[in-house]
């Protein structure tokens, strides 16, 4: 049997870094093939070459035995290669049907297209209304738009880049049913992920990349997750550790917090209530777009609310802005690293001054004390192992993981009373993520209260004492994190957003 796609010696270098170095592997028809690796291992570059977005420097590709050199995504799609992107390539202000039409070479008339979308969505158990605006859809529904867009082209190879990072556990189950059905029909799937358990349940074969090189291949069902992790990282990882302890007094108390969002696609917060105690980590789980950004901006002071709704050590702070809250000890690290947590074109020193000016006394009568500011930036770099030439480097120049360590470290070293972080390890590789989690645990150990908002449920179960779910702007009652199962969490997260699974048993 000839392989569907055969890749030989693919190499791509960017100035200063070799993204892919002599990578070879083959995908059989109907196979679910995993591409595994840390951030920066070269997975994205590799699939971009297969999809025609990037041209390789060296190496050859063969599709069904014929030479395959797509000059642009259009050519790839014409050859039967489709891709679902990690950062959705969707247009929020356009309808589902319009979004689908944009991804097709020769779209049918709008009415026929709507009918075909309905037909395909029913066949594969992915219900979708063609007339809805994408901006109003949940992350899981948006992904369905992308998948259906691909399926309408009848692909031979479907590339999926980190498809499950934004889904609830139930939605993941449904996605897997769809993928298995596709693979049974003969469509090959190239599945990119760093979630090892998922790969073990879904994939037939795996290729593992590290630093641009292929370091191994395996049959995921036959090996352990730990074995694959070791191949991926090149060393074994330690679990975050901490001692058991009793929580102290209530540091942050929120009651009746309702916020209308600033943007038309935001989610309103409805009567959110929570409290965190000294020495405690409160985990807030939820699929993106359920009010996380609004909650963070209400807690940070970017959105002002009635004074009494948020109290810090009994003191009302709801009507205070971010600087006043920082002065009192309530610090925040938002999700968006470039543009929200850090100013991309300013140096690390300047970025340190932006949030730490008050608590670290980095200015005197209106003048910035640059010496002291540089000292503080260097302290963050040293303590949090930020890999950078020095504090004069622009924030934009750091990789995602390093910048994340920097912005979290900047807040932690200000010795907060309460720290709120949103997606602390999003897009961060496994070893940096472990370091960040350990730092958050150490902070709680030292008597601070920590709120972690995250989509990564494994992460929340690992570090939080109590867990609550944010769903459509409502926060559930907290439950002890220890002993909580994935199914229970999935139900707390609102199940699969009213989906019906046609392949397997019905899901709420």
């Amino acid at each position, binding site marked *: 049997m000839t392989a569907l796609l055969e890749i030989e010696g693919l190499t791509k270098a960017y100035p200063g870094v070799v993204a892919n170095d002599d990578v070879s592997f083959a995908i059989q028809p109907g196979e679910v093939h995993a591409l595994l690796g840390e951030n920066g291992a070269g997975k994205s570059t590799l699939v*971009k070459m297969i999809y*025609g*977005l*990037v041209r390789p420097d060296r190496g050859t590709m063969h599709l069904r035995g014929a030479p395959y050199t797509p000059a*642009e*995504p*259009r050519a790839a*799609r014409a050859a039967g290669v489709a891709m679902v*992107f990690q*950062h*959705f*390539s*969707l*247009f*929020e*202000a*356009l309808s589902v049907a*319009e979004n689908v*039409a*944009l*991804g097709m070479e020769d*779209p049918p008339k709008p009415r026929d297209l709507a009918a075909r979308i309905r037909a395909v969505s029913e066949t594969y158990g992915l219900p979708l209304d063609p007339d809805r605006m994408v*901006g109003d859809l949940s992350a899981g529904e948006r992904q369905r738009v992308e998948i259906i867009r691909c399926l309408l082209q009848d692909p031979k190879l479907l590339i999926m880049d980190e498809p499950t990072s934004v889904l609830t556990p139930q939605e993941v189950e449904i996605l897997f049913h769809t993928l298995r059905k596709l693979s049974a029909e003969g469509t090959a799937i190239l599945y990119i992920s760093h979630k090892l358990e998922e790969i073990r349940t879904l994939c037939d074969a795996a290729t593992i990349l590290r630093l641009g090189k292929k370091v191994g291949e395996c049959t995921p069902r036959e090996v352990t997750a730990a074995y694959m992790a070791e191949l991926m990282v090149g060393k074994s990882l330690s679990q975050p550790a901490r001692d058991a302890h009793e929580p102290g007094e209530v540091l942050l108390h929120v009651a009746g917090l309702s916020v209308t969002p600033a*943007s*038309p696609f935001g989610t309103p917060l409805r009567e959110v209530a929570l409290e965190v105690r000294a020495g405690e980590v409160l985990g807030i789980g939820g699929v993106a777009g359920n009010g996380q950004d609004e909650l963070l901006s209400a807690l940070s002071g970017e959105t002002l609310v009635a004074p009494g709704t948020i109290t810090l050590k009994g003191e009302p702070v709801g009507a205070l802005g971010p600087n006043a809250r920082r002065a009192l000890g309530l610090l925040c690290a938002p999700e968006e690293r470039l543009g929200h947590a850090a100013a991309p074109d300013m140096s690390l020193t300047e970025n340190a001054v932006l949030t730490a000016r008050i608590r670290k006394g980095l200015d005197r009568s209106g003048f910035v004390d640059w010496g002291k500011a540089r000292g503080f930036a260097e302290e963050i770099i040293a303590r949090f192992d930020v890999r950078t030439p020095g504090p004069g480097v622009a924030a934009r120049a750091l990789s995602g993981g390093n910048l994340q360590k920097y912005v979290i470290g900047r807040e932690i070293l200000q010795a907060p009373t309460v720290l709120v972080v949103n997606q602390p390890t999003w897009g961060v590789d496994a070893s940096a993520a472990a370091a960040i989690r350990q730092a958050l645990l150490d902070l709680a150990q030292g008597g601070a209260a920590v709120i972690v908002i995250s989509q990564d449920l494994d992460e929340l179960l690992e570090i939080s004492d109590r867990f609550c779910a944010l769903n459509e702007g409502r926060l559930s009652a907290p439950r002890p994190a220890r002993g909580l199962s994935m199914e229970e969490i999935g139900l707390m997260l609102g199940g699969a957003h009213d989906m019906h699974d046609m392949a397997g048993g019905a899901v709420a």
Partner: protein
Amino acid sequence: MIIDPVTLIVALVTVSTPVLLAAIGELVVEKSGVLNLGVEGMMIMGAVCGFIAAHETGSPTLAFLAGMAGGAALSLIFAVLTQFLMANQVASGLALTLFGLGLAALLGVAYPGQPVPDVAKPFPEAIREIEVIGPILFSHDLVTYLAVALVAAVWLVLTRTRTGLIIRAVGESHDAAHALGYKVVRIRILAILFGGACAGLGGAFLSVVRVENWIEGMTAGAGWIALALVVFASWKPGRVLLGAWLFGGIAALQLRLQAAEIGVPVALLDASPYLVTIIVLVLMSSDRTRAALNAPAALGRVFHASS
């Protein structure tokens, strides 16, 4: 009563035509995600190029084509600066206006007061002289009808065709459009050139048909009104038409009020078209969330292909 409603409406349509053309062109440019603040400069370039061509060749058709070419040529500078050299769109647009005003003054230095040919009307005299509807519907210039047709065409293309969908997609998220394989830069350059040609045609109409003379700085802020129209009309072609007519109506009305010597300061009357248009459109677009939905999300952002 010395203000005749029929002649007022006729004047309204004529006065609004240059603004309408410039605004509908800019609407397409902004829908593709580019903010070109150089409308005033492109209009005045169209005005001077059109006037020179009309005087030198005696052909109105060539005059309008020259106006379009002048506006488009100036917009090409903006396109190169913002799409290839990644320059800031706001600064480039402002510079374009200043440059266009200066260049037009230089080109037109020998032309004030020169004669231009009369532009023939499309409908025969018998139809134009029918009571009331004759002047209102059939007495205008071809370019005026063209401008209104262009509004309808732009609406149709943007909402009903694949071309329009691609333009809107590029303006909504250039990264997503690029990932799907659309040529963001090429689409935007074409939109910018279209906007330049429309503004140039508006300028040529102003100098060749409406004023029949070249005067330095004769656009007098019409380009800025066109820009304001697009935003306050929430990027909807139909509302742009309404806004342009409102602007033209007040402008025509205030001239007649000045002639009637009513007891309102002249300065206030002069400012009234600008004030009233902006106030009305601000009120119309006061529902912020609905206006934001129609606004191109990538407007004014520099696109840099990452791969």
